[in-house]
C-alpha cells in the first residue's frame, strides 16, 4: 500500500516539476561528442575523405592539408604573403565564417564579425558595427533586395540583391587615402530593405559537386506523384545550362567558382576567376565603380591571388607541388576533399529513437525534399572516395518555393525571391544557427517556419504538427544525430 502511494506521489511530483517530459518536445541542442561524429577530427582539423586520408592518389593529402592551411590564412591589405584584403570585405579569413564545428563548417557561437573593429581588422574611425551583428549571433552576409533611389527610398523597380560588404579598409595602414563609406545599413534595416545569409557548411561538398544531372532529374521524377503539395525545380548555371548546386539558392555550379567568388566578395581579394576589385552593387549600378585611390592597395597588381610560378623547393615533391596553384584552387580542393559528417547512431536519445525519427522524417514527407541519399556520384578522376559514392546530404538539390515567411526577395539565376535549395541536413546535429538568415537556433522554429503563404512545405509541416510529442522528439533526436 505504502509503496504504491509513494510511487503515485512521485509520479505526480515528477509531472508537476517536469511537465515538459510528459507533454512537449525539445530540440536537444548541439550534439556533444566527436566533431562531425568522427574520432580524430578536431575544431581545427576536419577529416578528409577516406581515400585522401590514405593519400590516394599520392599527393592528395598534401593538397588537402595545404588547402586547409590556406583556408585559415589571415589576409591583410598589403605587405606580407597574404595580402589583397578589401577595399571592402566581410571578414579576413575563410575559416572565420566557416568554422562550426570545425574548419569548413558554418557560423560559430562567437561571431567573429562582431569583433572586427575591436581586433583592428577594420578601423573604428571609419567603420561602425551594424546592429544586425551581435557577439553571439550568426555570422552574416547582408544584401539589399532593392537599390535606394535619389530620395533615399528603396526602389522596388530596381532589384539589387548583391552582397553589401560590411567593412571598409579605409583608415587602416595600407589603405592610403582610400576613403569609402559603409553602405547605409541602419536605414536599410529601418526600411526592411536588408536580408541576411549565413555560411553553408562545406563538409562533403565534393560529393555534391560530383553528382550527374541525370541522377538529380531521376529523383525529381520519382517525387512527381507525391500527395504532399511539393513540386520543385532546378537552378541552372548561366553559362552552360547545367544544374547548379551550391549556395542557399543553388546559384553556383562548382567549388572553384564559389571559391573565386567568395574570395572576391567576402574578402575583396581578386583572383584568376574574378579579376577586378568588386565595387558595391550600387557603385556598379550608378556607374561610379570604386575610386581610383582604392584600387591596387596591395600594390601587387591584379589578380592579387595568382598561380605561384616559383615556389620554394621541398624534399617532398607533393608538398612542393601543392604550393603552385593559386589560393582559390587550393580552397576548392580542400573543400572537395573534406569528408561528409558521420551521423551518430546513438546520440541524442538512443538508437531506437533515432531510427524511429528517421522513419518519421521520411513518412511525413520531409524526405520528399530532404532526400536522404542521392546515389550515386560519377566515377571520379580525383580520388576514389568521390566516385560512385552515395551522397547522404538530405537534399534533392532542387529549389522550392518556401513562402512569404522565408522569402528574401533576392533573385539568383533561375531562383526567385521565395525559392531556396533544399538545405542539406548532414552535419545538422552540430550546427548552431538555422535557415538562410540564421534566424533561429531551435530546430522546432526552423520546422515551423517551413509553412506560410506560398510554401511547398506547408502540408508536410502540418503532418509534423499532427505527430505526438514523443514522435516529434524522435524526429528531433534524429535531426540532431546527423
Amino acid at each position: 500500500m505504502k509503496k504504491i502511494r509513494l510511487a503515485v506521489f512521485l509520479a505526480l511530483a515528477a509531472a508537476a516539476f517536469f511537465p515538459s517530459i510528459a507533454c512537449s518536445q525539445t530540440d536537444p541542442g548541439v550534439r556533444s561528442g566527436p566533431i562531425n561524429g568522427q574520432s580524430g577530427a578536431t575544431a581545427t582539423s576536419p577529416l578528409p575523405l577516406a581515400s585522401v586520408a590514405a593519400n590516394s592518389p599520392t599527393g592528395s593529402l598534401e593538397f588537402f592539408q595545404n588547402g586547409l592551411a590556406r583556408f585559415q590564412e589571415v589576409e591583410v591589405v598589403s605587405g606580407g604573403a597574404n595580402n589583397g584584403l578589401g577595399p571592402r570585405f566581410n571578414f579576413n579569413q575563410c575559416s572565420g565564417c566557416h568554422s562550426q564545428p570545425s574548419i569548413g563548417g558554418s557560423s560559430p557561437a562567437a561571431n567573429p564579425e562582431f569583433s572586427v573593429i575591436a581586433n583592428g581588422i577594420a578601423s573604428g574611425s571609419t567603420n561602425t558595427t551594424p546592429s544586425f551583428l551581435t557577439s553571439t549571433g550568426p555570422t552574416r552576409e547582408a544584401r539589399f533586395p532593392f537599390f535606394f533611389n535619389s530620395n533615399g527610398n528603396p526602389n522596388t523597380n530596381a532589384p539589387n540583391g548583391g552582397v553589401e560588404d560590411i567593412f571598409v579598409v579605409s583608415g587602416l595602414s595600407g589603405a592610403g587615402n582610400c576613403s569609402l563609406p559603409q553602405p547605409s545599413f541602419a536605414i536599410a534595416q529601418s526600411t526592411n530593405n536588408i536580408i541576411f545569409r549565413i555560411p553553408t557548411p562545406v563538409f562533403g561538398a565534393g560529393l555534391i559537386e560530383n553528382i550527374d544531372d541525370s541522377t538529380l532529374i531521376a529523383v525529381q521524377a520519382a517525387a512527381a506523384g507525391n500527395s504532399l503539395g511539393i513540386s520543385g525545380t532546378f537552378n541552372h548555371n548561366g553559362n552552360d545550362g547545367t544544374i547548379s548546386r551550391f549556395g542557399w539558392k543553388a546559384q553556383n555550379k562548382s567549388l572553384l567558382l564559389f571559391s573565386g567568388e567568395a574570395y572576391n566578395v567576402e574578402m575583396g581579394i581578386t583572383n584568376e576567376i574574378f579579376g577586378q576589385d568588386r565595387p558595391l552593387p550600387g557603385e556598379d549600378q550608378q556607374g561610379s565603380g570604386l575610386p581610383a585611390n582604392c584600387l591596387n592597395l596591395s600594390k601587387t597588381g591584379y589578380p592579387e591571388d595568382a598561380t605561384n610560378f616559383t615556389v620554394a623547393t621541398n624534399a617532398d615533391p607533393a608538398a612542393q607541388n601543392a604550393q603552385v596553384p593559386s589560393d582559390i584552387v587550393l580552397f576548392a580542393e580542400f573543400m572537395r576533399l573534406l569528408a561528409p559528417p558521420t551521423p551518430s547512431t546513438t546520440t541524442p536519445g538512443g538508437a531506437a529513437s533515432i531510427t524511429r525519427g528517421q522513419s518519421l522524417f521520411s513518412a511525413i514527407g520531409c524526405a520528399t525534399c530532404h532526400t536522404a541519399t542521392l546515389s550515386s556520384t560519377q566515377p571520379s578522376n580525383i580520388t576514389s572516395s568521390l566516385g560512385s559514392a552515395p551522397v547522404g546530404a538530405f537534399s534533392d538539390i532542387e529549389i522550392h518555393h518556401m513562402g512569404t515567411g522565408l522569402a528574401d526577395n533576392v533573385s539568383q539565376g533561375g531562383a526567385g525571391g521565395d525559392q531556396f535549395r533544399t538545405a542539406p541536413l548532414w552535419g545538422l546535429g552540430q550546427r548552431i544557427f538555422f535557415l538562410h538568415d540564421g534566424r533561429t537556433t531551435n530546430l522546432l522554429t526552423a520546422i515551423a517556419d517551413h509553412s506560410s503563404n506560398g510554401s511547398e512545405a506547408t502540408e508536410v509541416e502540418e503532418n509534423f504538427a499532427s505527430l505526438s510529442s514523443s514522435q516529434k522528439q524522435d524526429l528531433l533526436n534524429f535531426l540532431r544525430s546527423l
Partner: protein
Amino acid sequence: MQGKITRSALWRFLAVLAIHGTLLGAAQGAPQSGGDYSTNPDAKKLPTETILVKGAWSSASDAVTPLPEGGRVSRNVYNNAYFGLAYPLSPDWTEKYSGPPPSDSGYYVLAQIRPADTFTGETRGSILIAAQDLFFTLAPAGSAFELINYTRDHLNADYKVERPPTPVTVAGRSFVRLDYFSPVAELHWHVLATQIRCHMVQFVFTSRDTKLIENLIQDMSAISLPPEAGAIAGTGGGDAPLCIKDYARDENIIERNDPVFTERRFNSVPVRIIIDKEGKVKHIHFLSAFPDQAKAITDALAEWRFRPYLRNGQAVEVETGIIFGHPPRLAAPPPSPAVSE
C-alpha cells in the same frame, strides 16, 4: 604673350580646380542617397511577408478566362471556375495558407484546408486539393488513373497500401481512390482523384483518425463537378474547350513564328493555349515564366495559325500545351500519348 599665363586664364584654372575639389569631396565624403545609400531618415518602409521579387511565375494573356490556379475559398466553399468545381467545406474547416504558384512541371496546389479555430474534434487532419496538368507531368502517365498508379508505385517502403487504386463514384462522377498508411507516423492518406480538362484533380485527406477522414469523404457528395469529370475521361467539352495533348505539332500548324528571347535562361516554360475555331490563339496561360519570356512568347503566338479542329464536321475550340524554353530532360521514357480523342 607667348608662354605667359594671363590673369583671367589663371582664375579660370583655379575655379576649375575648386569645382573639382568639391566633386572629389562629395565622392569621398558623406554619400548622397542612391544605390547602396540612403540619407533619408523617413524613407518608405517595404512591406514584410510579401514576395516582391518573383522568379518564373504564372500569368495569362487576359484577366477573364478562368485559370486552374484561380480557385478561391469563399463562404466556406472552394470554387474553381476553370475546373467547373465547387466543393463545400465541412463546417469548421478553413484555408489557412495559400499554396505555391504552379510549378514548371504543371503541378498546382489549389487549396490547403485545415480545421478552423472553432474545430472541436480531438484529432487534426488536412485536406489538400491539388492538380497535375497531364500535358506537362514528369511522370509517364496519361490519365488521372495512371498518375495515381504512379503515386502508388513510388511510395517508399515505410507506407502500407490499404486500398490500391480503385474506381469509386463521388457525386455521380468516377474517381480513382488510393488509401495508404504510415505505421510509424500513424498517419493515413486517402487520395481521391478524377480528371478534368486533361488535369488530374485530387483531394488528399490526411489524419491519424480514419473516421474523421471517412466523414470528410462522405461530405464530398455535396461537390459539384462538370459532366466530363472521370478517372480516365476528362478531356474537356461542354462549356470548356476540348483538350488535346500535343495539338501544336507540325501537321496542325499552318503558320508559326518562334519567340525571340532576349535573355539566356534555362527554365522550362510550359504554356497552355486555347485555339479558337478559326485556328488563332485566343488565350495563353503561362504556368511558369519570367516576364520577358511571357512577353516574347505572347508576341510570337499572335502570329501562329492552326488548322481548326473539326468534331463531327464542326470546328471547335481546342486547348493544348506547348513547352518553350528548355524542356525538362525526362528521366523516364516519355509519357504515353495522353488524351486524344
